[in-house]
């Protein structure tokens, strides 16, 4: 699935990732935890291909293809989904139009036929129901006027509709109350827990991992993976802190 080897990246000439190596296989959910400033969001943006996040060394492949050689929209068409820590508001563009155009652009890039308006709405309704999101919300402009929790829930609806094979979820749990956390956790399990799919869950706290049980937990500090283990590592981090464990 995803193989990151000795990845180095910088922002404005400042090195952030300093030799990060990580393999995520199909059927696995990996959690990356780490203190503020460790490079967690930088890793997400580098995998997404954001402008300004410059890769200075190493390699990343997704299903054997060179991910770093693809433009951001090509990465999406290749099966990658990046869940944003701060989903962007797009005034004047409805969720329905945005997601239908996005899905059909991806399908077109993969040589699949586009979904009709009716087919798309049926799919959208199904995924919105899964995340317990009112369909009326999807008719509104992308993330405009959504609360922090609604934005995260909308991200998961988007993920359900776009149906990626690999998801990088950057602090998807931030801004969620306990009930929303459960809904989002269930959504991740339902959408992404499959033998041909994988998830890289970037999180600051252990609490999401109560709902989405990771197969592997990694600690990212100063731009590198410093410790890896099973779910019990997250528990230890929560009780002992990053400094003691990493």
């Amino acid at each position, binding site marked *: 699935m995803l193989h990151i080897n000795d990845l180095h990246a910088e922002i404005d000439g400042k090195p952030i990732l300093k030799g990060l190596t990580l393999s995520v296989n199909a059927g696995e959910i990996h959690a990356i935890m780490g203190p503020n400033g460790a490079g967690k969001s930088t890793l997400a943006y580098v995998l997404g291909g954001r402008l300004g996040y410059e890769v200075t060394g190493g390699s990343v492949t997704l299903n054997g293809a060179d991910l770093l050689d693809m433009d951001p929209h090509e990465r999406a068409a290749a099966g990658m989904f990046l869940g944003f820590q701060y989903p962007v508001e797009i005034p004047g563009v409805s969720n329905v139009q945005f997601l239908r*155009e996005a899905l059909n*652009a991806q399908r077109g*890039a993969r040589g699949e036929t586009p979904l009709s308006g009716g087919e798309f709405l049926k799919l959208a309704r199904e995924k919105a129901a899964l995340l317990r999101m009112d369909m009326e919300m999807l008719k509104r402009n992308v993330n405009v006027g959504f609360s922090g929790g609604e934005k995260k829930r909308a991200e998961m609806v988007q993920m359900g509709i776009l149906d990626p094979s690999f998801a990088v979820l950057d602090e998807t749990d931030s801004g969620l109350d306990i009930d929303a956390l459960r809904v989002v956790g269930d959504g991740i399990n339902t959408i992404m827990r499959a033998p041909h799919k994988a998830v890289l869950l970037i999180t600051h706290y252990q609490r999401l991992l109560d709902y989405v049980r990771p197969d592997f937990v990694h600690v990212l500090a100063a731009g590198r993976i410093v410790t890896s283990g099973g779910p019990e590592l997250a528990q230890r981090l929560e009780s002992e802190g990053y400094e003691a464990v990493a």
Partner: protein
Amino acid sequence: MATLPTTRDESWRYADGAVLANLDPDVLDQWDDFTVDPGETARRVIVAGGAGPELIRVRVSVGDGATAELFGVVAGEAYARLEVVVSLGKGAHFQFGGVTIGGGNAVREIVTRMDHALPDATSDQVIRAVHWGTATGNFLGRIDVARHAQKTDAAQDFKGLILERGAATNARPELEIYADDVKCAHGASIGQLDEGARFYMAARGLPPELARKLLVQAFIGDAFAALEDEDEQARLMDVALAALGDRS
């Protein structure tokens, strides 16, 4: 016969001087009269989308208590100017939505003048400019409120979107207000496409051209928001977005 304007004339200062020098002076005398009788409501839709220079001048006369609506897209390939002069009766309303859009090296402009000479009239203008290449989009909007035109409510909102370095927009709101009990809101801002939104859209699989099209559509949609006829709205949007599609 009219004298040819030059860019030394205030209301032509951002125009294309070379084109002005070659204008047929007769066109300056050609005004399209749009008159709405008292109490009536009427709409006019204008598209400047030709290959050669265009000068479209509309003289709007809105009767007492009447409503006139004018929507226009200036999307031609050469210098084009939509000029709208409006005189408002007592309690009249004028609604305007205008878009200049295009690339190349052309100047496209919308020039409006609201003449609030009588009380209780309202006017609302929404103008959007989207340009690339080395094109220029201008909006010159003048609002005159006479001493007796109390309770005038005149709004003017301009936003420019520059898609590439090299393109430009000029905005010149001009308000002359002699009445004391009036509302005149005006705003002008110029920016570029939001990088965060573009990355977000790309991360969902939208290629850059499609993301740009959606963002431009949302941006200029404001200018047509008051147009209730959805088919007309869609037609104007198509004209504007077609210009974006031809982008070289």
